[in-house]
């Protein structure tokens, strides 16, 4: 038995020194190879007296396992060390910049249009469109604003012909006319789009965006109008409560007409919507004038409803704290980057309008 102990002690001694993988493998074959030290001990079993045989064999097996484990452990240790060294060599400066990437952005007006569409979608409005170039009839006359009406002075119009029959639409309201001529009531639509007025200063741009709303059915009254706008404003500004005021006004295509103000206050030079005792005009609306309904062959005795129009750019300015309307169309790379939205930030009902 002392042979075995000797073998083990020797091995333990050898394993203590610094070894490489092939040296350990050599040791392994020295012990367990065909004529290895351990293998030759196994050959001895046959020569041992019957009474001692069982004990010897069992002890031998234990020693064998022990030695094998020691060697395997050493091998693993060496392998680990080798990997560690390799990885150590591969180490890089991880603070170096990542590979270059570019990031695109969605214009705040487009984002706002999507937000508006998402809000109105939830209460059953669908989106309609109309052309940017309109006839004088659709833009004015059909909307109860006949030629020579002083209300036309409120719209500085771009014309495309000397006879003033073709123009760039001054509001999105002609989409009402197109929609009602095309289909049969009920109507429940919004129409966002580009609008144009020959007006240009700090707060006016020759092109801007409006969204039109139209809801015509058998029994739609001013209460529905107030409810719809109250809902929209709350959702759009993502507030639980909002101060809103309806003020009588006049638009040729609605009767009664109203302008809608929302409450705000100034905090640290920024507009805070929803509170305060200041009023801010944000949209015009009213009950669609019976003359307009007659013009599109809808019977005003059977059908009635409301329409509204609001400035998208202005809504975006208020929500996102943008001061200068002109900057929307100036295409300054820095501005687009600053106010733009990630294309993956799609406003939807279930994930909300914004993060």
């Amino acid at each position: 038995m002392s042979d075995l102990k000797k073998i083990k002690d020797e091995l333990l001694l050898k394993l203590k020194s610094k070894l490489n993988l092939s040296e350990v493998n050599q040791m392994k074959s020295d012990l367990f190879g065909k004529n290895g030290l351990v293998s030759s001990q196994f050959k001895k079993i046959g020569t041992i007296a019957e009474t001692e045989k069982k004990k010897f064999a069992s002890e031998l097996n234990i020693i064998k396992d022990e030695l094998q484990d020691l060697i395997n452990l050493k091998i693993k240790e060496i392998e680990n060390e080798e990997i560690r060294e390799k990885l150590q060599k591969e180490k890089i400066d991880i603070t170096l910049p990542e590979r270059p990437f570019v990031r695109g952005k969605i214009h705040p007006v487009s984002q706002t249009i999507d937000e508006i569409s998402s809000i109105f979608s939830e209460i059953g409005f669908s989106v309609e469109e109309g052309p940017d170039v309109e006839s004088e009839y659709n833009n004015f006359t059909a909307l109860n604003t006949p030629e020579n009406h002083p209300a036309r002075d409120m719209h500085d119009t771009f014309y495309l012909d000397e006879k003033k029959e073709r123009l760039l639409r001054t509001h999105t309201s002609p989409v009402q006319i197109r929609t009602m001529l095309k289909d049969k009531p009920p109507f429940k639509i919004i129409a966002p789009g580009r609008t144009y007025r020959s007006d240009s200063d700090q707060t006016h741009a020759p092109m801007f965006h409006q969204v039109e709303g139209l809801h015509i059915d058998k029994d739609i009254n001013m209460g529905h109008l107030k409810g719809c706008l109250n809902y929209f404003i709350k959702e759009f500004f993502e507030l639980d409560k909002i101060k809103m005021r309806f003020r009588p006004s006049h638009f040729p295509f609605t009767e009664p007409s109203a302008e809608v103000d929302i409450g705000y206050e100034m905090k640290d030079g920024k507009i805070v919507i929803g509170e305060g005792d200041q009023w801010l005009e944000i949209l015009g609306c009213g009950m669609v004038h019976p003359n307009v309904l007659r013009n599109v062959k809808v019977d005003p005795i059977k059908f009635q409803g409301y329409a509204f129009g609001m400035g998208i750019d202005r809504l975006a300015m208020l929500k996102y704290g943008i001061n200068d309307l002109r900057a929307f169309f100036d295409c300054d790379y820095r501005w687009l980057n600053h106010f733009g939205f990630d294309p993956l930030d799609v406003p939807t009902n279930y994930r909300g309008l914004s993060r």
Partner: protein
Amino acid sequence: MKITFDWLKDHLKTNLKEKNLLEQLTNVGLEVEGVQNLSSDKELFKVAKIIKTIKHPNADRLKVCDVDIGEKEFKKVVCGATNAVEGLITVYASPGSIIPKTKTKLVVAKIRGVTSYGMLCSESELNLSDESDGIIELSSGYKKIIGKNYFSKSKSNLIDLSITPNRPDCLGIRGIARDLAASGFGKLIDFKKKKIKSNNRHSLKVKIKKEKNQGCSIFGSCLITDVKNTESPQWLKDKLISIGQKPISAIVDITNYVMFDLNRPLHAYNADKIEKGIIVRNSKSGEKFTALDNKDYKLEDGMCVISDHKGVLGLGGIIGGVRSGTELDTKNILLESAYFKPGSIRTTAKKLNLDTDAKFRFERGIDPLSIEDGLNKAAILIKEICGGKISKIDVQKIETHKTKIIKFDINLIEKVAGFKISTKEIFKILENLGFKFKKKKNFFELTVPSWRPDITQGIDIVEELVRISGYDKISIIDPIKKRKKSTLNKSQKLFHFLQRSIASKGYLEAITWSFTDSNYNNYFRDTKKEIKIVNPISTELDVLRNSIFSNLIIYMNKNLDRGFKDLSIYEIGPTFTGSKPGEQNTVVCGLSSGKKSRLSWIEKERNVDVFDVKKDVVQTLIEAGYKSEEFFIDNKTPNYYHPGKSGRLFLKKDEDLVAAYFGEIHPNIIKKIDMRTESLVGFEIFLDNLKLSVKTLNDQKNKFNVSDYQKSERDFAFIINKDVNAQNLINAIASVDKNLISNIKVFDVYEGDNIPENQKSIAISVTIQSIEKTLNDNELESINKLIIETVENKTGAKIRS
């Protein structure tokens, strides 16, 4: 419309405060645009007289004036007005006063080395008129009050109202008072109608010519003889100044006063200048007259003029003429109070580009029954202030006013407004607004007051009632969250998809004008028609854009000037093909400049190139659901692309509509617009040319069919003429067996050594896989052979051995 609470109180009995007034004006629909607090600092504007002027020692155009402001010592004031001469009576602003026009506070300041204590004001600086040429010249009547405040001591603020075009009646103070009274804000004071009691003959004959499109239907007038026109008494001057008007002379001031008070425009003629009589008629083309604004007007046919036997005196309801104007020495006047038709007024004023207070009122509709009230009120005032004898009133009419009667069903109120108003309340409101009513069986018969041209039908009555009751009575009915129709249609969904798809590829979305500079537009117009705007806002925005590129390139250049180099911007929006409604296309247009990976420590930098934009276009279309294996691409592109480095893409080979163009922008354009960038590439995707899939995403996803059998990748290298497109090879390979060939990739293109001149080598990797079994060597070999044969036969290529 500018008013003061004090003036309102001439018509309205109320104990309420100005704060309540402002709220109530807004509540009834008379929007308060602004309130000017004049009471405090208006005391700092004094009537003053220039005693002496000397030339400013350091400035040729300036004078140093000694000004008497009623104090012991004269004030030294530096002034640049040419009319600042010794003896002039004018308005002096003390240091500390706020100049109404500029809203700036005046301080004692050195002007070119000379200290100026205050300022002498022009009319425009005091917001009295647009007259900014020289300082105010006050009449000698002001001599008595040098040093006194120029503005009245009235504590009433100036309230600026925005009156909507349907409410001409509220262009008079009385009309505003009526609305307020109806809403419960005080009581309307009865209009004490003083009438002219006269037996004097009206000796001027007035005739309205009956002709087609006659713009005047009623002409009332009276003669006032032996008047002594003078300066207005202080109360009248104060009144006009309080609403920002400048007093002129008693007769003019009185006509203005009646206009602002009752919205009844009047005109006073020098009766001695009228030849024989008044004829109201249509003008004849070429007739001329000099108007009170000192401008000569050449008239066209059919404008409503007031004339005498010598010619045109004035444009009825718009502006009077110099020939018969009232001066301080005028002795006999003809006072006119007429009804001119809104349409006629508007047409004439538009043609002559004239805007006056009278025109503004007549084009909105003046009360046709106010003719005599206006004459009475003004004539009596003139007699009081200027003396003289008033004649009988003469009224010529060619049409009589028809009273409007409306049948009104009170149920309409609740139907439209959603709330009820009691019958008692209805009557009260309508009565206060001047309506008369009779109860009939199922409805009321309402007589509309003559000053309300805007009211023609039941809905107008509803508006009146709801407006006066208060919009706060309308209850909020919460919307129902139900959707019957999808929000977006297919093309709208595609729009939104493409918009976000392009942005996700690193482009910043821009929104630029739908119009553009015709010079730039011409670079990208190709064969399209130029669409001019008749009245552009500037010459740089004079046409509708035929392509989005013109604007993008203008703004790209501005950004390059800001020092940016590698930019990608895009816009999705309309381009125009004609000036008729609908002649427009929706286009996604992108532009990229500079380099990729500029100054990167890890990536190799390179110029952006046509294959970058090709990738953006192809990837976007694939993401949008179009099949890339069906795309057909050739090199026929519009002239603004580099002819050798651009392409057009069709969704299918036999399609006639171009889905997209992409490529380098033509170097000539870059040179002409002096753009500095290493590279400029762009693309256009035409939304209207993209077929909308009838299948829903759901349908498209139905089948999942893949092969798990072993696939084999084989590489081929072909030698081919340089001008043959790689696409031809790909198509040839694809045509061999659609079921077995699952992927074709060009992995190398080579020209040069070892390749004959005018030829190139194209290396292609082909993936072969069956969905039925694993192919054996023989089968693979025969496909290889077939591929080589087909390519060689179809394209003239030779396999490289």
